[in-house]
């Protein structure tokens, strides 16, 4: 399990339920490495602010994470973490490698239409 304070998704079933039961979802799929940890940090920070969005992580090396690793939207990705944004269970955006807080905010504001003042 990843050492973060985010909700951990541990299986493909949990992943399915999570994206189906929540309208707006951001999941970061990575390891405890230098490109991934800053993204978890930003998500932990934004969790309290973006209440309409559910934030979670999934361990890249968990075999069940094939639901993210093999998503067509991630086919060309060659950098951890794979960060995937879902609306009503469908992928609306996916990014590869480290992202800044501003880049993540931009996606959240654009895809989930919830402008939060910072």
């Amino acid at each position, binding site marked *: 399990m990843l*050492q973060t304070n985010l909700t951990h998704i541990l299986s493909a079933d949990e992943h399915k339920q999570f994206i189906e039961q929540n309208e707006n979802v951001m999941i970061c799929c990575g*390891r*405890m*490495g*230098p*490109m*991934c*940890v*800053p993204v978890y*940090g*930003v998500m932990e*920070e934004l969790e309290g602010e973006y209440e309409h969005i559910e934030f979670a992580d999934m361990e890249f090396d968990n075999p069940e994470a094939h639901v993210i690793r093999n998503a067509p939207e991630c*086919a*060309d*990705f*060659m*950098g*951890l973490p794979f960060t995937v944004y879902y609306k009503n269970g469908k992928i609306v955006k996916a*990014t*590869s*490698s*480290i992202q800044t*807080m501003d880049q993540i905010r931009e996606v959240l504001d654009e895809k989930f239409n919830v402008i939060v*003042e*910072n």
Partner: protein
Amino acid sequence: MESNHFDLIIIGGGPAGLTAGIYGARAKLKTLILNEGTAGGQLVLTHEIANYPGIESTSGYMLGSTMARQARDFGCTIRSNVRISNLNLNDAIKEVEVNEKDQYSTDAVILSPGGRSRTLGVPGETDLKGRGISYCATCDGDFFQDKNIIVVGGGNSALEEAVSLTRYASKVTIIHQFDHFQAFPHAIVEAEQNEKIDFVMNSKITEFIGEDRLRSVTIENAVTGISDKREIDGVFIFIGYVPNTEFLKGKVDLNQWGEIKVSDELQTNIPGVYAAGDCIPKKVRQVTTAVSDGTIASLSAANYIHQKKRDLVAI
């Protein structure tokens, strides 16, 4: 309402800033750390720290989290992932604005914004990051199994990471802008002896090409001026370090490399403003040297603040 005045504000929450926070809070100063990234700074970029005395081996993330918890437990407030939008260091009471809305005032400031890896800054680099361009061999090496890749750089990191990437890649080409390497001799020999590695000297990448993923690069030879296009699966960039001091230009004295000039007590040219860690001029940039600076800067700031308070009482 809680006051927004702090005895001490620390800008940057890496090892230097967190250490300064621990010492500040233990000296009974109301202390705030404002950090643009994740608490721990470059520590969280490090898979393993094996040379921090007293701790045989740990991940950078764990060491950074422990330092942050220690600072909090002593009473220090930490705000991470914030942006300094305004800074007035010149007056006796200094002002810091965060995210264009939160205003703080303070008697003393410690600047510890550290540094970051240098990027090439050429077309295509930002768009293809994570799609063939990487800055971390340990993180992304396994995506390049049996691939043909380039490593850019000529220092220790570039040569050592090139060797480590041969565990995955079928071929590694090191591209370096000069005709010689800056790395230690043993790192150069190890790279030269590796059959999977070849070298393109006096050259630089001027463009990354690809839509969904990196397909090729343009390489310019600095001597002949001739440019070549080369098909490639991946590029790893290790070209050194820049201090995060752009936001301090015109506010404190910087040297020609953008490092903050300091006295032996780590005071800048402004009374009550100190600097610590990788952002000051030094030869060795390590966690141990950063925490040492954080200690000195914090104790110097504490002396300054206590003296200032004593002067006020005397008036």
